[in-house]
């Protein structure tokens, strides 16, 4: 199984192509089995992963265009490993949750999802800038199709907006990537797009600044950072449940992952220099979108905006420049994936039943659908960061780590635990508490076996990783510490060296 990563990437592709000839009736079963195999493969990847090592593992290297140093180069470390596993898991759960009666043309849906899975895995394991960019852009296509084909009334507008927005950003990113390759060529007269080679590149602070900015735009559009976030509510509002789930759980993480994988190690000085800007944007993002979420009438929009708010927390964690914050932010990526995925699934369930997502149409659902309400409640508590759920670990670590950077900003960002609970609890109160206001809701059925199968694993993970995050946190922490040590070593300016706290120094101080 040396080529496990290639298998992980290309198995869904192959299965997707084969999916075209699968019988319509059995498309969902086919999708579930493929996704399950893929998920098991990714688990196998975890078990054979050396958790004590912080290095890249399972490296595969195959030159494609030698003249320009473009190669098929994939590997995982602690940072990407779990995001890959999360992608395969969310895809599996998403396919399980698909309702045969509500989705016409199931076969196309399954095929799109499998293609999407390929691109997602590809993005997170690529170590070659061109291959990374390729998967990054390819991931837009199936999602565009999913929103455009199965979405709500203004799906085309939403899909095009989503596409153009992220595409515009990633083009600028591409320019940045090419510029790095060119600068590398200038320095060493070798063309290469290998990220690990790029890490050795020593750039002047000024150059770093501009390149950081170029990549920042590409990643920030995807995250989405304020003020580039407006495509997200549209996309979520129109996307089918499965689309929202994958969009929120995995696709948004590409942006923050990009920051960790590219911006930080390539431009340590610029990253430190840009911390104030990122702080300001992130805090606006956290507070402002949380307040916008409170004003929403539509359940799904609340969760969509809350996604943006939580991505803000992840962003400040990335720029905390210490092991606590960065590990926390990567953990928060996972936890946000699980929680927002589950919440979108839950909203999708009620939407399937009633055909509406407006909160005022509900009320008193807790007495009609107790199991549904319970699972929703668990996810809600995880979302507001209750200890012993997965949401707390990440949020706590991020805020803890960020406190070292700026106490005042941490307090401002920390208000998310207050306003987060405000909009979430008011959503819960409006929809689940009180009397049953809408008589037609009285006959609603509680969760069926299919939905429970999709949701229970998420609940289990949310609780398990809340109580015992160590198996995941430790590999992440190893890789993060290596990253920070490299950054500190590479940093040119004394300010940057001071801001980046790798673990070594933290211990020396003691």
């Amino acid at each position, binding site marked *: 199984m040396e080529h496990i990563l290639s298998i992980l990437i290309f198995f869904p592709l192959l299965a997707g192509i084969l999916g075209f000839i699968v019988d319509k009736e059995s498309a969902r079963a086919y999708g579930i089995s493929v996704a399950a195999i893929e998920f098991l493969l990714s688990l196998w990847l975890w078990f054979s992963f050396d958790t004590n090592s912080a290095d890249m593992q399972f490296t595969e290297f195959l030159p494609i265009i030698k003249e320009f140093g473009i190669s098929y180069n994939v590997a995982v470390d602690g940072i990407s490993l779990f995001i890959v596993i999360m992608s395969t898991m969310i895809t599996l759960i998403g396919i399980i949750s698909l309702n045969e009666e509500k989705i016409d043309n199931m076969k196309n849906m399954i095929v799109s999802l499998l293609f999407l899975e390929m691109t997602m895995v590809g993005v997170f394991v690529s170590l070659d800038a061109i291959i990374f960019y390729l998967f990054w852009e390819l991931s837009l296509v199936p999602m565009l199709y999913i929103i455009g084909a199965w979405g709500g009334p203004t799906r085309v507008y939403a899909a095009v907006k989503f596409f*153009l927005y992220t595409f515009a950003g990633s083009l600028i990113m591409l320019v940045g990537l090419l510029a790095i390759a060119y600068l590398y060529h200038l320095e060493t007269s070798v063309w290469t797009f290998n990220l690990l080679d790029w890490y050795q590149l020593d750039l002047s602070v000024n150059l770093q600044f501009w390149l950081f900015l170029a990549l920042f735009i590409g990643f920030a559009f995807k995250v989405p950072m304020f*003020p580039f*976030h*407006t*495509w997200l509510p*549209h996309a979520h509002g129109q996307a089918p449940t499965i689309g929202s789930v994958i969009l929120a759980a995995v696709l948004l993480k590409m942006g923050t992952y990009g920051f960790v994988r590219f911006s930080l190690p390539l431009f340590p000085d610029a990253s430190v220099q840009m911390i104030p800007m990122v702080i300001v944007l992130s805090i606006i993002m956290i507070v*402002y979108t949380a*307040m*916008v979420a*409170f*004003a*929403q009438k539509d359940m799904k929009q609340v969760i969509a905006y809350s996604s943006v708010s939580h991505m803000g927390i992840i962003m400040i964690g990335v720029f905390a420049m*210490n*092991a*606590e914050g960065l*590990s926390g932010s990567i*953990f928060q990526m996972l936890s946000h994936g699980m929680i927002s995925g589950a919440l979108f699934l839950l909203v999708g369930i009620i939407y399937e039943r009633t055909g509406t997502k407006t909160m005022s149409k509900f009320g*008193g659902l*807790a*007495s009609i659908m*107790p*199991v549904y309400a*319970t699972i929703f409640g668990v996810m809600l*508590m995880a979302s*507001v960061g*209750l*200890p*012993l759920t997965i949401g*707390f*670990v990440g949020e*706590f*670590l991020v*805020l*803890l780590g960020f*406190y*070292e950077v700026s*106490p005042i900003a*941490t*307090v401002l960002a*920390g208000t998310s*635990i*207050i306003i987060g*609970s*405000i909009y979430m*609890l008011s959503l819960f*109160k409006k929809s689940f*508490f*009180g*009397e049953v206001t809408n008589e037609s809701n009285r006959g609603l059925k509680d969760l069926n076996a299919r939905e429970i199968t999709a949701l229970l694993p998420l609940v289990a993970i949310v609780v398990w990783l809340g*109580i*015992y*995050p*160590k198996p995941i*946190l*430790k590999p*992440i*922490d190893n890789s*993060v510490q290596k990253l920070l040590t490299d950054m500190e070593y590479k940093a040119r300016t004394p300010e940057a060296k001071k801001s980046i706290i790798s*673990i070594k120094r933290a*211990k020396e101080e003691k």
Partner: protein
Amino acid sequence: MEKLVYIALFAPFVGSLFAGLFFARSPKNIIVGVVNPALIFISWLASVALAFHVAEHGAIHVTMMDWISAGALHIPFGFVVDEVSVTMMVVVTTVSTVVHIYSNGYMDHDKSFNRFFSYLSAFVFSMMILVMSDNFAGLFIGWEGVGVCSWLLIGFWYHKKDVTPDINPAISPSYAANEAFIMNRIADLGMLVGIFLIYWNVGSLQYDVVFKELPHLEDGILVAIAIALFIGAMGKSAQFPLHTWLTDAMEGPTPVSALIHAATMVTAGVFLVIRANPLYSLDAVSDVSYFIAALGTFVAFFAASMALVNRDLKRIIAYSTLSQLGYMFAAAGLGAYWIALFHLAAHAFFKALLFLGAGNVMHAMDDELDIFKMGGLKKVMRGTYLYMGIASLALAGLPPLAGYFSKDAIIETAFNEGTYVLWFALVFTAGLTAFYSFRQVFLTFDGEERYKRFGFHPHEMYRYVLVAMSPLAILAIIAGWFQDSFHEFIIKLLPEYEMSHHTHHNAWWLGLLVLFFAVSGIIIAYKKYARKGDKAFKQDKKVESGFFYKLLMNQYYIPAFYVEFIVKPYTAISDKFWAIDKAVVDATVDFIAKVIYKTGDSSRVIQNGNLSSYLNWMGIGAVLLILASAIAVVMG
């Protein structure tokens, strides 16, 4: 002994899972009603055994497993059973056991009987984590855990709909639950900041490491930590200005009010200050400590004043809880940590008893809470009358009941510290306390039987419930007698606090003064509210329309202020932000798209199909290119 620690901690958890997982959807099941109290009782047994162990052999420290470790941060699930935590454990499990048994009777007819027990046991578990944890993060787990359980339990009757504040000041159980949770979260942010400060300055969150390191820190940081932690304590213990949730929390079932909002959870803030006594007794933070004492005194008086006029049985007790929490903070802030803890324990017993008695009354009166609709209940509810009388006497601080010893010690402390303003406020509040608690008792149990006019048919609570309450009644009477042995026990961990000779000298008249205030309060209450016949209590319209009455009745207009100046603006700003999001941020993007579309539209005219005009355009382009190259040549 480790096993005992785990038994004490996890027995409630097992109970919660038992009721939650196996009986969540089934109707009332008596097995739950037996097993859950039994498990809590086991936890109590373990706690008592641990208490004896600790008294003899000292603290026990166990580490179960790692929780979070990242960077230099390592947080284990570690538990410490020392003098302070074991006191809390015993208090918590004692009250919990009684409340669990009591709930069997109180929730008898509720269709969510099993769910209630599941939540209640989960609360006990969280509270045990809170008191037993050996680090600040673990404390925070329990801190948030009790918050959630409180949210679940306040909103237990979630199906009730919202009403206007005129009918019910708390609007609805779910509203009150959210209010409580959000208020607590505000304070939790302060607490988190405290934790961050500790971590970045000490490098660990373990109590022992932190407390050892504290004296080496800068003064400014110490003050910041002290303030941040106290903000956390203010939320949980409902200190001004975060106090409004506590009275609204009375929407929850009465056993919940007894357990959570009187005896245990709200005292977590006091517990935190006691736990962090090495911090608060440092000279550098003496100002913060004094502020804690002053705020405590203020809240003691402030809450008591609101209790004077309230007509709602449970709210009066809630205000008295607030007021007593103020006493505890006053003691802790003045450095008398063991006295604060002693009052905490004694208060837990008699306040829980008071609430459970109130629950009996509610049960008898079909959930009616207005004490003006009661009166003369002592005939039908003799047992409850007795219990509530004892509890109120204890609360008023009459000897030889528990409250006398603990409260008197606090007042003496205030005198001893020379803070005479605080001292006098506390003495005066003691008088108020006696008045309002006996106003409530007399209005409920004595005087004319007004309830008949409203068609109530009160009846006494089940006998086994009354029996189950007896431990609390006994403790409310005798707890104070163990002051000296408790002092000896707790002083091993907490700093000693000794009265000066001067105070000793004056102790007898100080005590008498307090007693005088208390007794006069009771007498006034009796004269005003307990008569019959012609002299029976009449509502005084003139007084009720007076300024002070209205001010107190509306809780100094603080809830209204919050609604008007925080809730409404927040909602308005949120709506505005949403509008901005659509009209500015999103519209900007759409505008860019529109501009591109428009330029496309308008430049389409060029594409008119006429070859000649194409050639013209090409010509213009060619000339421009040539010009550009010419300029480049000239420049270059």
